[in-house]
């Protein structure tokens, strides 16, 4: 996920993963509940009241992301997100954020493979104004050629900050590119540098016209506001925008059968330590059979999340072969999910040893399953996480917005804790089958000079 500015980002550990889809049981009666409705022009609206502070979070989510980019224009979804802050007929160049700031608000936006989202956090009396502005730029964006080129330099600097200066991020890009054979998830959200350098005003406007419309968006408002207030304001702003009948979800290329596990090695003297990584394509909440994604969440929690997990215990505590080891499951993708493991081996420990131990941990769960005690602990951790999230209206907005944008329903989201609670140890054991080595890539990063193979220029 990429954001327009660095300063609002916090590295959520399981971040985009399923915590963004996690509601609760014990809090079902007292916890916040969403109200939803749809305007005649197709805009889907979700409101989650929280009146502890006189503040609202206003977010618009578009059902489009980097995975929908036309070939050869990688990065255009994120570039457009930046350009959305430039100008409209009503709003002068660069004024959008400045107006929000003068209102005492904060704004930003972010782009991922499946979604693009814009948000403002303001005191409740400012909601009408930011809603008016967000509705305006949904269809009235005005782009100046010169400003587009300047902003292109900004995203190229962003790429240098995030990727080019950081060997771990370069490896991550290469892992993604190797994991998927055909699906556009293989292309980084920020874009390949050579394609970014050629992105144009025309590319941005074409993407905008094709995907930005009320019938391709979800409005999420959380905070000190009622559904009725939101409905009235939305009708007066977004409601005036006609449906765009030409907008439709892009069919993305699907993966062919995977017949060979991939392996990659990156040598970069700028790397801090030797690191080992593996990623698997897995089902997501959108694509999984009922209960399967919940089981994967629990499986990866037990296997690899935190100091009580089996992988950490085995590699770091018992065998003492690594300073860190862990993993995660991300079920928030529209077309597939991802499972990952990583480790930082101690000096002198071969990657093969790391791999053998992690495979051993997986094999053991495949054969014997998990204990009831582990399962209960993992469930408790997730359910508690939901309650902690209810403390934060911005997290709530993100939970609902993300899940709805990739195809979940409010019911799916709010019944999640119940479904999670019902997962059995047998289901967790069965979920191990998704750790299919043929659908994986294993990658290593070494702090060494790259090889000079025969034929290469010295």
């Amino acid at each position, binding site marked *: 996920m990429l954001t327009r500015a660095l300063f609002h980002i916090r*590295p959520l550990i399981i971040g985009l993963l399923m915590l963004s889809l996690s509601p609760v049981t014990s809090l079902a009666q007292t916890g916040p509940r969403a109200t939803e409705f749809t305007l005649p022009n197709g805009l889907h609206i979700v409101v989650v009241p929280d009146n502890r502070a006189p503040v609202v979070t206003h977010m618009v989510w578009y059902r489009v992301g980097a995975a929908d980019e036309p070939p050869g224009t990688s990065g255009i979804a994120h570039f457009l997100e930046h350009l959305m802050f430039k100008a409209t007929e009503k709003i002068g160049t660069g004024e959008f954020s400045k107006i929000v700031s*003068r209102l005492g608000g904060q704004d930003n936006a972010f782009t991922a493979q499946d979604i693009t989202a814009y948000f403002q956090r303001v005191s409740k009396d400012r909601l009408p104004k930011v809603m008016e502005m967000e509705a305006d730029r949904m269809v009235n964006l005005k782009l100046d050629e010169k400003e587009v080129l300047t902003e292109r330099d900004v995203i190229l*600097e962003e790429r240098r900050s995030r990727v080019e200066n950081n060997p771990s991020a370069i490896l991550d890009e290469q892992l993604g590119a190797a994991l998927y054979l055909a699906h556009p998830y293989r292309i980084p959200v920020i874009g390949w540098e050579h394609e970014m350098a050629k992105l144009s005003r025309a590319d941005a406007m074409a993407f905008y016209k094709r995907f930005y419309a009320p019938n391709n968006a979800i409005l999420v408002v959380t905070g000190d506001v009622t559904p009725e207030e939101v409905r009235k304001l939305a009708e007066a702003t977004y409601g005036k925008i006609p449906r765009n009948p030409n907008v439709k979800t892009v069919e993305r290329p699907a993966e062919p059968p995977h017949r060979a596990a991939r392996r990659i090695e990156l040598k970069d003297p700028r790397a801090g330590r030797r690191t080992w990584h593996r990623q698997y394509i897995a089902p997501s909440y959108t694509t999984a059979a009922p209960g399967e994604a919940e089981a994967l969440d629990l499986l990866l929690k037990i296997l690899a999340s935190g100091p009580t997990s089996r992988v950490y215990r085995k590699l770091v*505590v018992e065998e003492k072969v690594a300073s860190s080891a862990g993993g995660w499951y991300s079920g928030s993708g529209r077309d597939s999910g991802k499972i990952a493991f990583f480790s930082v081996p101690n000096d002198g420990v071969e990657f093969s040893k790391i791999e053998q131990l992690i495979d051993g941990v997986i094999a053991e769960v495949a054969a014997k399953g998990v204990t009831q005690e582990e399962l209960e*602990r993992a469930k408790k951790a997730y359910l508690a996480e939901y*309650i902690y999230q*209810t403390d*934060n209206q911005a997290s709530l907005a993100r939970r609902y917005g993300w899940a709805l944008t990739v195809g979940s329903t409010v019911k799916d989201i709010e019944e999640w804790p119940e479904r999670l609670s019902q997962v059995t140890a047998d289901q967790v054991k069965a979920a191990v089958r998704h750790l299919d080595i043929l659908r994986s890539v294993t990658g290593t990063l070494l702090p060494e000079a790259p090889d000079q193979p025969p034929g290469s220029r010295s």
Partner: protein
Amino acid sequence: MSSSAPLRGRLFVRPAKLPVVASAMLLCLAAPVLTAKAHAMKIQQIKSPGGIDAWLVQEHAVPLIALRFVFEGGSSQNPAGKEGVANFLSAMMDEGAGDLDSHKFQERMEELAFRMSFEDARDGLYGSFETLTTNRDPSIEMLRLAVNQPRFDADAMERVRRQLLSGLAFAAKNPNRVAGAAWSAQAFPGHPYGLPSDGTPQSIAKITRDDLESFRKRNFARDNLKVVAVGDITPEQLGALLDRVFGDLPAKADLAPVAQTSPAAKERVQVIPMDVPQSVVQFGSPGIARDDDDFMAAFVLNQILGGGGFASRLTEEVREKRGLAYSVYSYLQPYRRAAIFAGGVATKNEEVGRSLDVIRGELRRMAEEGPTPEEMQNAKDYLTGSFALRFDTNAKIANQLLGFLFEGYGIDYIDKRNALVNAVTLADVKRVAQRLLKADELIVTVVGKPQGMTK
């Protein structure tokens, strides 16, 4: 785990550990407007039966309790040659206590689903603790154990030591981290603020169990403790909690004196070569202390010059107009014993000289002309209007209030703050801009392969 390797993010950039103290930053950014709905948040001053003071905000709408506390001291208390002790101690706090070894302690943490973490800053060691109301008592017992009876078992220590060393190996090649550490070393030679707070491979290798225990005993006391609680808890319950967790600590901390200091007001430019396409630049100069009469004017000034948001002059000139950088900013960092005005930019190597020229030019222009009346008004509107955004979760309220407590502000500060911002005049800001912004006296650290530098 506070100490595991920096590999878990995906496309995120980890915020650089620049010489910025999180809690102090929060404070810099705070400004009140809550008086508008004061009933939404009432701060109570609590004294426990055992005599421990705390601030409490009761909020029973969500079944959670957030506790934040700080022991004055922090990494500036690391003994000479043992840099990183406070960091090591912070990482050991969930590695076993009382009868529970590391594994049992962490399993119990998961069963009770409470969150506990510790982090050292230059002037304090911060604790953060959150629990569900239903698990309050057993969770608090775990916090009590951690604070009073951490085990520091050899096995756990060696594991954490490896993690810290691994973290240092990553940091040594991370241009942001290198720039931050080198800038501090340049600005504060011979002072604890100039030392690497996370330690060095040499110092981490030497730290013993006795070092951790001795640091804990000297730093964990009642007279240097500040506590804030927010959430589903009554004053009586909080009083009992405070005595239980902190009541057995020594009455007085045994802190080493830290000398008052300041970065030299003299231009110094250091380039640390690193093979990266984008250079990371840190700059800074003497700042303005929190108790200085000009602090609030400096705060408003910084907001206009390079503070958060897209409205600052540096963002406008460096990013929006010229496309030189994704990130450019400035901030005030008032440490206990030194005040800094600082900033940074990351730009491709070819543009470092030009970016620094633009930044210096903006500092000069601001020092000479000050802001426009319109900029003043915009900054005040933002600072006063956005205040409520910093108080919309239990966790954020607790962080903010702890910052106020740490600075010694009164319980009414929150109600006075907007007036303080609004009282700053254009003349104040012009005067402070002249006093603070010295474009030709910056201490600059550049990490990368910069080109075009004129100084």
